[in-house]
């Protein structure tokens, strides 16, 4: 929670925290090392990149893209997955069969490969990354919600609601949705880390957010050609990705342990 909150504060207040403009470079100051190493200066605490841009400022602003894409993708995939899972699990029969066959079809593709294929068609950009990651991302939520609904729909209060003449949509929204919300939240929090890693990977491959917008994956890719003499360009963004994803994974595990004590006992 502390890790995630720290990065979130960093992302929100980036314009106030960052010492320099992340896109403004000075070629005379390119490839300057961090301040604690030989040749470094306090003007650029984490050094500069190939175009003389401040690494600290770019790292701070890079967190915005990670949070934006992470939250948007997870919000959309959780919503789609919840709706489809609810409908699939509640109505069952042919509707369930058709939906689950489509889900099976999507599950046949590893996510990164499918995202790359879609990016190949759509081209790079924030909107297209979100579309590419949402395309398959909802199936996990769908499966989890469907599983919960299959159990909950047999409960007596659902039967009572049906007997009292409640419509299907009323039962879905008032009786079933609140009972599967915990699972949706757990899956969502565990997925954010994966989405951030995928976005960073796509940016690393040059198919993500395009320059000059700073993204951590793009910064690591930028530093690849200078790895022998400017290790800091790849190191600091990578550390940020690692810490942020760890933070979300820890948060997700904590939420899972809170909402499902059985699972938490198994892991101990």
């Amino acid at each position, binding site marked *: 929670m502390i890790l995630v909150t720290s990065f979130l504060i960093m992302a929100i207040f980036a314009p106030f925290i960052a010492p320099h403009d992340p896109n403004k470079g000075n070629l005379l100051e390119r490839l300057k090392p961090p301040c604690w190493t030989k040749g470094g200066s306090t003007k650029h605490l984490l050094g500069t990149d190939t175009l003389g841009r401040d690494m600290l400022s770019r790292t701070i602003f890079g967190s915005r893209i990670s949070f934006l894409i992470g939250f948007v993708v997870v919000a959309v995939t959780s919503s789609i997955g919840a709706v489809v899972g609810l409908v699939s699990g509640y109505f069952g029969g042919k509707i369930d069969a058709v939906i689950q066959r489509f889900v099976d079809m999507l599950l046949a593709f590893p996510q990164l490969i499918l995202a790359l294929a879609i990016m190949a068609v759509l081209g790079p950009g924030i909107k297209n990354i979100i579309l590419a990651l949402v395309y398959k991302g909802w199936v996990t939520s769908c499966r989890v919600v469907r599983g919960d609904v299959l159990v909950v729909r047999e409960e007596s209060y659902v039967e009572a609601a049906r007997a009292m003449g409640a419509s299907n949509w009323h039962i879905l929204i008032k009786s079933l949705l609140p009972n599967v919300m915990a699972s949706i939240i757990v899956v969502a929090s565990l997925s954010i880390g994966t989405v951030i890693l995928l976005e960073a*990977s796509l940016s690393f491959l040059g198919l993500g957010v395009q320059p000059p917008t700073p993204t951590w994956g793009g910064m690591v890719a930028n530093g690849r050609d200078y790895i022998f003499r400017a290790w800091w360009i790849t190191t600091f963004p990578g550390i940020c990705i690692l810490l942020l994803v760890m933070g979300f994974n820890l948060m997700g595990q904590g939420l899972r342990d809170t909402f499902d004590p059985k699972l938490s006992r198994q892991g101990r």
Partner: protein
Amino acid sequence: MVFLIMYLTPGDPVEIMMGEGSVVSAEEIERLRHELGLDRPMVEQYLSFVGGIFRGNFGRSIIQRASVMKLIGSRLPATFELTILSIVISVMIAIPIGVLSAVKKYSLLDNIGTVSALVGVSMPTFWLGLLLIIVFSVKFKLLPVTGRISYGHGLEPITNFLLIDAVITLNWAALADVIRHLLLPAITLGCHMVALTMRITRSSMLEVLSQDYIRTAWSKGLGRKAVILKHALRNALVPTVTVVTLNFGVLLGGNMIVESVFGWPGLGRLVINAIYTRDYPLVQGAVLVYAFTYVVMNFVADLLYTVLNPKVRF
């Protein structure tokens, strides 16, 4: 679905083939479109695409002007060799640590294992690869950065699996060199797998160790090694083996990143280049191969589960 993704691509594949600024008559473009079947209705194109798949014909690469199947076939051995070695290394590291973590629950080793697993699943693969290059190739100059083998080893490619070729030809120097080239990419690729396998092994060992038959084994006076390795581990490995098999497909996806970082001449790098150059038939063929392998490995995992756990039947 693969056909649809490519069919809905904006832009004309023939114009892409001709290149920007080319001076080609409209009749020539029309002739080429007819030759490639692009003027036919969508359903006919789809049926032709599916028929081609069954005949092993995935079309021709727009950029490289060669059969897609041939191009993919030339790169598959490198990718499979890397993936398989990655799995072997992951399993060799993860299972012993998982077992020890379970046996010495809440100890320092267990805590280190837990933290390592968390770091492992959170680590960006491309970043780990670059870090390993900095440490092992740049700083200590222990391992090479790119390629499958150094020049001058005179290794004849028989199967294109260089490890197997080196063993067949008894070229031990080449074998050592191939392993040196494989180590960094395999470790990078296997990082997530190590973390996941370690957690699964620990979790299933804990469950097995709490079973009655293990208590019986202890009370019979069996040695620690016999109880843990002979009785507990065998049963605890069932979910581990299935998870490892299921993750083969996931590793194929991760291959693209690792091959890009290390310049590994595998299918992943071919696909990345095809995406950059908008070589859609090649992307199409490669995605199909990946999806097929993923489905086959899922099926193998299901079969393995029934073999290892006779209580499960489909």
